[in-house]
């Protein structure tokens, strides 16, 4: 029998969120706790998500705004 502990997988994507496997509870900087019961949760790292701390793909707009100079960098809130 293996003594190797089962480690939770955390995947850092090149362009977007961090993927965490398993139901999680995220503790925000103000102490609030937010739960996700998904098998995999995408945690926002760009901070532009309207559903922060969860990814809503807003990083795509940021990447585009960064590429096209003069583009509106504000997400369409």
């Amino acid at each position: 029998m293996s003594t190797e502990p089962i480690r939770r997988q955390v995947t850092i994507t090149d362009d977007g969120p961090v993927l965490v496997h398993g139901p999680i509870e995220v503790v925000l900087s103000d102490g609030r706790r937010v739960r996700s019961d998904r098998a995999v949760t995408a945690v926002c790292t760009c901070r532009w998500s309207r559903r922060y701390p969860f990814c809503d793909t807003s990083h795509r707009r940021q990447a585009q705004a960064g590429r096209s100079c003069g583009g509106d960098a504000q997400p369409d809130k």
Partner: protein
Amino acid sequence: MLSTAPAIATPELPAPRGPLSVAALDTLRGLPGGQLSAAAAAQADPYGEDLQLALYCCYELHYRGFTGVPAELEWDPPLLGLRRHLERAFLAALRADVPGGADVTAEIDALLVEAPDAAGVSHYLRRCGQLWQLREYVAHRSLYHLKEADPQAWVIPRLVGPAKAALVTVEHDEYGAGNPRRMHARLFADMMTELGLCPQYGAYLDAAPAATLAEVNFMSLCGLHRELRGALVGQFATVELTSSPGSDRLVRAIRRLGCGPAAIEFYAEHVEADAVHEQLVRHGVIAPLLAAEPELAADVVFGIQAATLLADRFSALLQQNWTANQPTLRHPLPDAPT
């Protein structure tokens, strides 16, 4: 007050729309004369009302069937023969109408970039959609969402290893991750009830035009043919990669129109879920699939391009008619303009 789950009901057979759907429906009713030549299917408009309805009815036997139609007809050789003629005509048209290629990365990058002047139907609804237009949109979409994730489930046994595991993770989420009240098809039915639509499976089949049926038919086509498993993955990727921002626009459209929480919940769930699914499909499904079977790249590209083509046709139909204040369902809803 939300609905209880819709009773397990099979849809009624629709009215035919031409000789192909007459042939299919006659066979389903057990009437003689349902035979059809390959030439008849080849001559029909591959995106037209008649062929798309006939194909939809053939495929429905693999899902829930129709009231009064024997379940054993699912594997009836003459009906499968008819289906094959219809599929070949549809598939040939799609292959002719997309640019093709085998550069999956370029196709995916294109899906992730949204043009500032993007003009999809979710943009229209967010910007200026009226309640009757939102209700029409949801009625169209019910043809797929009341069987959400079912067409893609056919591909599971055709995948192996990491690609299979990742696809099942996404499907598990679509089916509510073990909670039937969170099944996406159930969330969609709850939204229909809140919007005053009939949440029964297949209720809007007669009302759905060819452009609506074609999108679902493409999923069934790719799901049911192992040969097209790469295209199915491409179709799935297209939906999962574009759904999150589109769903966000629909949430804002629904909020602006003042609809209730069940109407918002379906699309709000998809903003978050599909942000995860995008990552899983790109890195978990497509990457290992192509590492194991690189020859499927052209099929994945075909699936992406064909799904995009059909989505654009659907979107154009709705927006062209709505701009002219015209309904888009074949049987307009009571609040649509006359």
